[in-house]
């Protein structure tokens, strides 16, 4: 069996079938989508106003990958401004529609980290003082009670920290919260909306540097399984979150839809969110030429010697292979699956150059299985 090195590769370019935080984040092809998302990040710093951007397209079309890519690469992507801080938070749409926003709230806290939230608020308390933080939150219509609670997240006292953490996760008793001067639990979905909005407002209210928060909510298509009450509650809560924060905040909603036009997305997403959308980024079905560009970028990144454009693949071999995929399956995920299998076949059969003949033999071997 040939090694990857014998095939001029440092690593298998097509091994990532499902994006994961430990994956190789190489952006391949999809230049328009990358440029639009990059622009959204730039715009967030040029204008204060909030953005709601809808990424939609087929399954395996690169939406989740885009979320991970920008989450884990934004420090490299936006290095020119040391005074700027990018906060990325990624969560998935809760599978269960009952109290979905409450779940989303807790997923946000876990994804960004309670410790980081606590440290940011503590640092701001020390530098700006409690009154200034109160003024900031009250100016955004965060209630007095929740303002108090959010500021307590940055409290030094160990007991207060323990109780306020329980309060956020819904496990504090009424007696416990009274001990730290609070009188109202986080209960209804609007409470969680205001509380999360307050946290985001403080995280982006930094005065020593410009901070912007980019919140990615993946798999919004799962809302189709919610009943009407859950659907309305969840979509209206997200809308209220966006309206309450209203600046220094960008929300990306990833939505899977194989076919359809704007009206279809509007029906599926609901009026509440559609009405707040700034623009959408379409992760369109690939043409074969898009697939070739995608493969080229990945191969190039992992080649040991990249003086020969596609080596160990021949361009014609990639083209033939991509044409075996039905149009609906011409997506990054399906291309990765197919190219990964082809590469494995070539290695197992001691091929060092992947030609159309190898593709043909590979296809026959699949049929004979």
């Amino acid at each position: 069996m040939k090694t990857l090195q014998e095939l001029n590769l440092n690593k298998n370019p097509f091994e990532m079938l499902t994006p994961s935080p430990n994956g190789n984040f190489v952006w391949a092809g999809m230049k328009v989508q990358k440029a639009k998302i990059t622009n959204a990040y730039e715009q967030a710093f040029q204008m204060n106003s909030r953005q709601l951007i809808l990424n939609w397209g087929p399954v395996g079309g690169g939406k989740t990958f885009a979320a991970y890519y920008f989450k884990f690469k934004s420090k490299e992507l936006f290095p020119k401004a040391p005074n700027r801080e990018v906060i990325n938070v990624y969560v998935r749409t809760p599978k269960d529609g009952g109290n979905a926003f409450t779940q989303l709230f807790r997923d946000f806290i876990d994804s960004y980290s309670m410790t980081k939230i606590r440290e940011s608020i503590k640092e701001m308390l020390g530098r700006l003082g409690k009154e200034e933080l109160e003024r900031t939150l009250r100016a955004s219509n965060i209630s007095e009670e929740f303002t108090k609670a959010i500021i307590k997240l940055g409290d030094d006292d160990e007991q207060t920290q323990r109780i306020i953490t329980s309060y956020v996760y819904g496990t504090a008793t009424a007696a416990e919260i009274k001990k730290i001067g609070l009188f109202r639990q986080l209960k209804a979905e609007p409470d969680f909306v205001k509380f999360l909005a307050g946290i985001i407002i403080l995280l982006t209210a930094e005065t020593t540097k410009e901070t912007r928060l980019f919140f990615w909510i993946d798999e919004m298509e799962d809302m189709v399984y919610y009943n009407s009450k859950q659907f309305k509650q969840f979509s209206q809560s997200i809308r209220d979150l966006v309206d309450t924060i209203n600046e220094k905040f960008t929300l990306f909603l990833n939505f899977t839809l194989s076919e359809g036009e704007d009206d279809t997305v509007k029906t599926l997403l609901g009026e509440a969110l559609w009405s707040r959308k700034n623009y959408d980024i379409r992760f369109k079905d690939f043409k074969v030429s898009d697939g070739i560009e995608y493969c080229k970028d990945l191969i190039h990144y992992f080649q040991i010697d990249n003086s020969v454009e596609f080596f160990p693949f021949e361009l014609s071999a990639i083209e033939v292979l991509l044409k075996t995929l039905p149009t609906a399956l011409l997506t990054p995920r399906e291309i990765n699956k197919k190219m990964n299998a082809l590469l494995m076949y070539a290695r197992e059969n001691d091929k060092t150059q992947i030609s159309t003949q190898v593709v043909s033999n590979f296809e026959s071997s699949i049929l004979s299985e």
Partner: protein
Amino acid sequence: MSNIYCVIDACSYIYLNQFTFTLNEKDTSLYDLLKKVKSLTIKHSRTIADEIKRNKAIDKREALKIDNHVYHFVKLPLEHYDKSIFSNSIALKAGDRGEKENIAVALDLFLDRKFSIIYLSDDKKATGETGHLREIMFAFPYYQIWSSFEVVLFLYFSFSRKFFDYTRALDSIQDLVSFVFKAKQLDLVTKRDSKEISMDEFSSRIQKVREEAQNYKVKYSNRIDLIRNLIAA
């Protein structure tokens, strides 16, 4: 409006009773609303009544009322329909007995000169586009075939100005989509977790379920929009 006969199966009965909204301070289901339609008579076979009563999801007291809707054959006995078009499979207690009996109910109504007949079924395996009873049903094109989704369209067109407005119609579509497809989604998750299906098969099938759910929501929402256009014109 001349009298409409709606021949309902157990599956549709369950779907239409699955969620309620408040009407005149009472919890009201789509089935309750269908019963309220003055010119509509709900009928079904004895087997369907028994199936409904056996279903644990149904309130027992309510289920007993279902007996009032059992159809008594007028023109030909059930055995005649069974022998001539179902190869005695009803008597042999083979599959889809209730749906077959309901076809016989619809045919008997037609022979009794009741010409506005709806065959209401959500049992896709038996009566859906590719259902195994579909060929028999095609031989007797004397009734309309509805699912619970068509009931929502009917209620909206009939009562949009009274108690079933645009928002309620759209909400009902969402509730039906949620009920029908969430169950399919959870079934696949269970099969994946018990290793009954592979991860690849799960991914492919879950995608199809989601696409089907999206298609239903869009298709029926668009139909409600069409009705709204007509009502508003």
